[in-house]
């Protein structure tokens, strides 16, 4: 276990170093949530078309936009993996005696830390827009844990796709195909109750729904969540472990 954590930390460390040296991705990723909250959120709030109970529509979608931001950046993490394969970095990692599980877990957690930066950006935007945010340290810690877990799930899923398709062109197509349906088949911008039954069934098996549910309960003042935190975190953890298991099996095929 100690070796696993040590090797994973080594991967996380270099990924974070790279991210901090070239923050353009963080800046560009901040634009989309800004548009969703400032344009889409404000316009739809004025229509009063979606019943979000006692919560304002802007407060309702803030956790959804954070989760969306995490999804959109993590689901394209596979591109970086394919790039590393083309550069021979994957080959070098796989020839080392490092555990395959720590290489994959390290990548997933590194993606999670990208989510932490996105969380800070969205908290800042939401604060400026007078969304009631819960700022207790323990709550913020729980939000960050959810974000890291969610980003880890989608980044690992992305890694699995990368291992299957192996080229950037194919990956881009599949990535585009997955993100919007996952987003719309979730409770990000409207509650589950107003969905047609077929969509609600899909939303219930979509891990994004559980991430948003946990965030909605934790992040905004008066935010209501459908499932208990135990269910939200258990589902996310279970999905993460299953995806990690598959990714560990598939990752070595990238070097073949």
């Amino acid at each position: 276990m100690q070796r696993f954590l040590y090797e994973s930390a080594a991967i996380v460390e270099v990924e974070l170093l790279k991210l901090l040296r070239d923050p353009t991705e963080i800046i560009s990723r901040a634009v989309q949530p800004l548009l969703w909250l400032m344009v889409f959120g404000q316009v739809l709030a004025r229509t009063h078309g979606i019943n979000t109970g006692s919560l304002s529509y802007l407060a309702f979608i803030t956790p959804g936009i954070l989760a969306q931001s995490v999804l959109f950046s993590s689901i394209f993490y596979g591109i970086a993996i394919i790039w590393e394969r083309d550069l021979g970095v994957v080959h070098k990692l796989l020839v080392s005696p490092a555990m395959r599980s720590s290489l994959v877990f390290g990548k997933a957690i590194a993606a999670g830390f990208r989510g932490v930066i996105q969380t800070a950006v969205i908290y800042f935007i939401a604060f400026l827009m007078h969304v009631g945010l819960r700022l207790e340290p323990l709550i913020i810690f729980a939000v960050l844990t959810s974000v890291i877990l969610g980003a880890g799930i989608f980044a690992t899923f992305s890694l699995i796709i990368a291992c299957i398709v192996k080229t950037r062109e194919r990956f881009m197509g599949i990535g585009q195909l997955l993100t919007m349906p996952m987003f719309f088949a979730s409770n990000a911008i409207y509650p589950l109750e107003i969905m047609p039954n077929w969509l609600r069934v899909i939303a219930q098996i979509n891990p994004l729904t559980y991430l948003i549910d946990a965030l909605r309960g934790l992040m905004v003042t008066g935010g209501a969540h459908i499932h208990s935190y135990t269910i939200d975190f258990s589902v996310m953890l279970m999905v993460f472990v299953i995806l990690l298991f598959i990714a560990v099996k598939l990752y070595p095929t990238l070097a073949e």
Partner: protein
Amino acid sequence: MNDDAIHHFAIETFDLTRRFEKMVAVDHIDLRISYGEVFGLLGANGAGKSTVIKMLTTLLTPSSGSADVGGFDIIKTPDEVRRSIGYVSQLLSADGALTGYENLRLSAKLYGLSKSDRIYRIADALSFMGLTDYAHKLVKNYSGGMIRRLELAQAMLHRPAILFLDEPTIGLDPVARHMVWDRLLTLRHDYGMTILITTHDMEEAETLCDNLAIMHSGKISIVGNPAKLRAGLGENASMDDVFAYFAGGSIHESGAFREVEQTRHTARRLG
């Protein structure tokens, strides 16, 4: 594990075969490479050299047959094999977004070196490769020769018994190429490393290799000492003649698309 291999051979393959669907990339090859030897694996693009290296470095599972590397079976004990080897890929695998020191530190951590060993060995490897003054510069600002030397430094950090080099001087200018050769020969001399190198460069093969094998269509065409192979072909035969004769044609005509693409990709990155 074969007992003889422990005493005599750093690398030994037994009917090693790899198929990709109907295509046989490596066809029942038997190789024996002694400890301390620099062994060249030559062949046209698509001959199967990189596939052999991938199997011996545990990146690819053989379809049939087996091999011992450093006395360990590549199928039954891949972890032990990985601890015994260093590998420099045909591609430029050093991370350009990190400094040379950070690249080395990552390798040291993944190979489980303790903190004290890590500090000492990184300094030693940087000094050995003439990169001490550039250790804290980003690798994307290194020259092609410096990147190759950094990759060699990464591969030797854990003092492996066997070093695998897949076309290590491809795309390098003559000065950088000779500097890499010099370091390889010193590695062999100072650390007694066994080196398996694939190359298209006949001068490289003749300068570095004690023995070499020429592959053609997944099979070993010939194994021998470079001088003897030349002599066997005729009084004035060059290594190019030896290659053309045993590799089944011209040096420049053949090649699988993926290998050619990789070669050009590496050359482009080296500028």
